[in-house]
């Protein structure tokens, strides 16, 4: 069965690019454009890993992460933060809340991101 990746990203273009890359690499992709629907999608689609943006309309990524980790049903789903925030406070906060990794978008190519995800899924 194809491994499933949930992509929570509000920027349409970035979402499309990442979606395309993940599909090319042979993953099943589910997308969400804001925090609320992202949180629902973590529950409903049971992804193998979540790629989570932080600055999102409505509920932000930190809240999504916190809620997902509190819910026993979704607590075990690995979450990788993919954001353009990147100050040490943000990184610390993200990892403390239980993120597997914190990737700054501008510092990674799509290929590098996929490699990171692959390592986590397998």
């Amino acid at each position, binding site marked *: 069965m194809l491994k499933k990746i949930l992509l929570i990203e509000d*920027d349409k273009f*970035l979402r499309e*690019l990442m979606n395309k*890359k993940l599909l090319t690499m042979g993953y099943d992709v589910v997308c969400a454009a804001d925090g609320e629907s992202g949180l629902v999608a973590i529950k409903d689609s049971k992804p193998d890993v979540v790629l989570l943006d932080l600055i999102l309309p409505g509920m932000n990524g930190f809240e999504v992460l916190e809620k997902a980790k509190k819910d026993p049903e979704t607590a075990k789903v690995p979450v990788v933060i993919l954001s353009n925030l990147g100050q*040490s406070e*943000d990184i610390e906060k993200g990892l403390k809340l239980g993120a597997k990794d914190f990737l700054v978008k*501008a510092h990674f190519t799509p290929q590098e991101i996929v490699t990171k995800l692959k390592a986590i899924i397998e």
Partner: protein
Amino acid sequence: MYEEVSNFKETKEETLRRVRVALLNILEDTEESRKEAVDEKNKTMAIIENLTDGILLLNRKNEIEIISPPVVDFLRREKEEVIGKNAFEFFSGEDFKPFREKLIDEEKKKIKQLFRQEISIGERLDLEVTTVLLKDEAKDKGVLIIFHDVTRDKLVERMKTEFVSISAHQLRTPLSAIKWTLRMVLDGDTGKLNDEQQELLEKTYVSNERMISLINDLLNVSRIEEGRFLYKQEPGKLEDVINAVVNSSQELLKMKKIILKMNLSQDIPLVNIDKEKMELAVQNLLENAAKYTPEGGSIDISLEKHEAEVVFKIKDTGVGIPETEHERIFTKFFRGENVIKMETEGSGLGLYTTRNIIDAHRGKIWFESKEGEGTTFFFSLPFAKQTLTA
């Protein structure tokens, strides 16, 4: 007989007069001492009343004896409502919860010993509080509580963090889109490119990368602060910092085919460091060494234990610093003349920031250099003391 009596009388009178003079002298001295004491008290009160820091003085029974005007503001109580009150009772009010929690040791029923601890009263007020136990020989004489208002500092700090956070995010998002698109096109995800297309887009990609790193530099808070302020200073291993920096610089070294040799001696004592800042300092030195060393050159990094300090050394086989410019090397915006001709990028802030960081750590930084042969930078940091001031 008469004579004797009169003699006796005179002696008595004499004595009385002497006693009176002595008494008057004593009285005068006392009056003088009293005046002096009053003067001293007035002076002390004038100092206390006019200090920008707030002062609260408790006597031996923990009753509030002195409250200075800033504290009246901080507590939002009139002076008359406070003076003479027992501090424990006074701070038991609901609106003084943050004070009570920080100041009072409920178990031992006494004021805690504090040094620059933060008390935050909602959005309104941030204070740094220090308590000093007043003693003479064996007796406790009370407690001095000093409040330093840091509300403005905190506000500016928050605004700065927010500004950096938001601008970094806003600027990076479109650049990420460009980076990702270019990379995917270059990697052939959208079909094969001809050589010319490949080459042009490759160059665009490099330009975009430069923009990203420029924004990183521009929005690096440590750089904005020029390395002057340390936040989290704790005993740590300088080796760890060096290893982290070296690991993240592998690409740069590989690109310039530079051979890096590391010689970190064993059992280096801990030093008090702000890890993030120290990484920036080491990174600046390593980047400089790599940038100004021609392809195929070498860089030696070593770490040694000296008598009371740890000495870091980084030696390159680069272009060196012209003798005439040695004095100005750590000044802001300085760039070597020989280096400007090489057309390498540089802001002239690296060594300036690095020196500030080392200074803030109470360390020393220096260098030796010969144009055309290379440069060696050194810095030393004192060993971390066993006992840390809280």
